[in-house]
């Protein structure tokens, strides 16, 4: 049993089931990110943990204690909302102190803790202002401060950075990560931004359509996606997914692909993979960084194969150049070094790192190898 256990929890609004049976066990000190597209049920699950939404069936337990019938205030959690939800009529100090006041913490202790978080978050000079007089980033800090002073068992974050501009978002992301390393408190964090998920988390739950699609470390999710949804959703630019057929090649099974213009090519799988799948139609998944130029290919890989294909578009992006071609009728993007000479309309020899390739069943979209 973990620190926070979600056991077969579901949520329905009338006949509408928005969260299907979910099992997640969070260890103390973990940074769990719930990620998924809009409407997939992330906030719902977070609100169930907070006690703001009732659990329709199943249970949620913190430190082994079932949270059934326990009010949000008595769960020893703190939450940071997307809109920050600062009380507009109270000063920053009032906002931070309100929760402690409600929990009957004496004034001197409140003052001490306010001073402490003000120091930690560098909001000391803002304490007497109203939320309306703060910038977005400052509001975000105050919202964090309000959560921090509670010294909770679990922090719940619901898209805390999505209202910030791009630069500030990156800065605050780093700060949240630092804060987690410093305090070591368990955090459950909702976002629809897969980069945030990958950079912050110790574990990720990828959600879609009310189901947890995959639960794992960022590395597992990135390298070994459980299905095509996870493969396509995590990573940017997203994983290339294109149809292929498993054939018996010279040195074992290979993926036969159709190139733009009608030709075909074979990409042998890495040693020992897909041996029992010969003849099967699959969807092959390869991330852009595993499709490179010859010199940019991973030297440690023992399954790099080159295929010549027509370049359709090149997109220089400073450090890399993204190059698109077509395989099996799908756009496929490769990530080349910036100084590679390549132009649209040319043929170019792409190096595929098949150690990083994954295969899915085209019908069930599940991972097969």
């Amino acid at each position, binding site marked *: 049993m973990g620190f926070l256990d979600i056991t077969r929890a579901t949520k329905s609004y009338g006949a509408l089931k928005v969260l299907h049976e979910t099992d997640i066990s969070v260890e103390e000190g973990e940074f769990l990110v719930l990620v998924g597209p809009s409407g997939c049920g992330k906030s719902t699950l977070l609100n169930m943990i907070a006690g703001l939404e009732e659990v329709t069936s199943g249970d949620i337990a913190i430190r082994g204690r079932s949270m059934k019938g326990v009010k949000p*205030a008595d769960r020893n959690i703190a939450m940071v909302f997307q809109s920050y939800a600062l009380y507009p*009529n109270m000063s920053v100090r009032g906002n931070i102190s309100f*929760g402690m006041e409600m929990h009957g913490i004496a004034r001197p202790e409140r003052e001490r803790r306010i001073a402490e978080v003000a120091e930690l978050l560098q909001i000391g000079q803002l304490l007497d202002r109203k939320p309306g007089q703060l910038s977005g980033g400052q509001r975000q800090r105050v919202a964090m401060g309000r959560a921090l002073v509670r010294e909770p068992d679990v922090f719940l974050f619901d898209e805390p950075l999505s209202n910030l501009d791009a630069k500030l978002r990156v800065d605050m992301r780093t700060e949240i990560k630092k804060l987690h390393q410093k305090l070591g408190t368990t955090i459950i964090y909702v976002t629809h931004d897969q980069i945030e998920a990958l950079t912050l988390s110790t574990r990720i739950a990828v959600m879609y359509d009310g189901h947890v699609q995959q639960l794992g470390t960022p590395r597992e999710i990135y390298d070994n996606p459980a299905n095509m949804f996870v493969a396509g959703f995590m990573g940017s630019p997203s994983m290339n997914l294109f149809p292929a057929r498993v054939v018996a090649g010279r040195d074992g099974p290979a993926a036969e692909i159709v190139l733009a213009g009608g030709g075909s090519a074979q990409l042998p799988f890495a040693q020992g993979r897909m041996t029992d799948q010969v003849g099967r139609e699959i969807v092959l998944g390869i991330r852009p960084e595993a499709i490179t130029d010859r010199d940019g290919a991973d030297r440690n890989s023992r399954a790099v194969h080159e295929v010549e294909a027509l370049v359709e578009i090149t997109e220089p992006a400073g450090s890399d150049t993204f190059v698109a071609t077509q395989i099996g009728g799908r756009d496929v993007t490769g990530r080349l070094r910036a100084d590679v000479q390549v132009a649209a309309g040319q043929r170019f020899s792409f190096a595929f790192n098949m150690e990083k390739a994954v295969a899915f069943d085209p019908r069930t979209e599940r991972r097969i190898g």
Partner: protein
Amino acid sequence: MMPGVSMDNPVAARSRGFSPGRIVLYLILGLFCLYYLLPLYVMAVNSVKPLSEITSGGMMSLPDEWTLAPWRAAWSQAQVGVEATGLRPYFMNSILMVVPAVALSTIMGALNGYVLTKWAFRGSTVLFGLLLFGCFIPFQMVLIPMARMLGLMGLAGSVAGLVFVHVVYGIGFSTLYFRNYYAAFPTELVRAAQIDGAGFFRIFWRILLPSSGPIAVVCIIWQFTNIWNDFLFGASFSDFDSQPMTVALNNLVQSSTGVREYNVHFAGAIMAALPTLLVYIVAGRFFVRGLMAGSVKG
């Protein structure tokens, strides 16, 4: 910068210069203004002149002899109904009626709005619909049932009875105001307060009410004006000693024991109108602001 400058110029020029069209416009507006102010002028000048000046045909002219006697008479000496008490006791009745009625209907409307938006329950929309329906039932329809209810409750013919009637009638409107205002109030704030450990009433007092200033002003002005000016309920449900100002004013004008003292009537009428005027002047600034709130973000 350049587009901003060129955008500003025509506006500035227009507001500084006085084109012929504008002068005509202001003239017309000024005439309208005078026209609307005329009744008030007539009331005011005639309430400070002796009766003889009015009866001799000088309705529109300023008094030759200025006097406050009509005001004193209307306030404390004139014959209202059977006794010569002036309007003072009835003014007090109206105050005793309007203050609790406005306070109660506003607070209950605020609570209703809070529950209907932030603690919605099965059937809350239907309930709100019924409350709204209550706003639009004509007064006349409820007179007889209400009289019976007041009788059963032992409130017939008392100021408390009038307070009750006005609160019941006012709740529909005050709920409408607050519900619409609170619908735009972020629910996340309520959730944050719940997590912070505040309960139902604490969230209301500490989080919602402090942000309700504009709508509370709208509601108070609305209720005050309606309840103070009400005649029908006052005439139907009060006794001689619990009559509100509006009914007493009517009695003052109607009690014809001799000559009609127009100057006293005018003074009485102004007295009856003063409180609503005062409320509007003091709080009116917020009125427009409150009516706009919610429709415009920010």
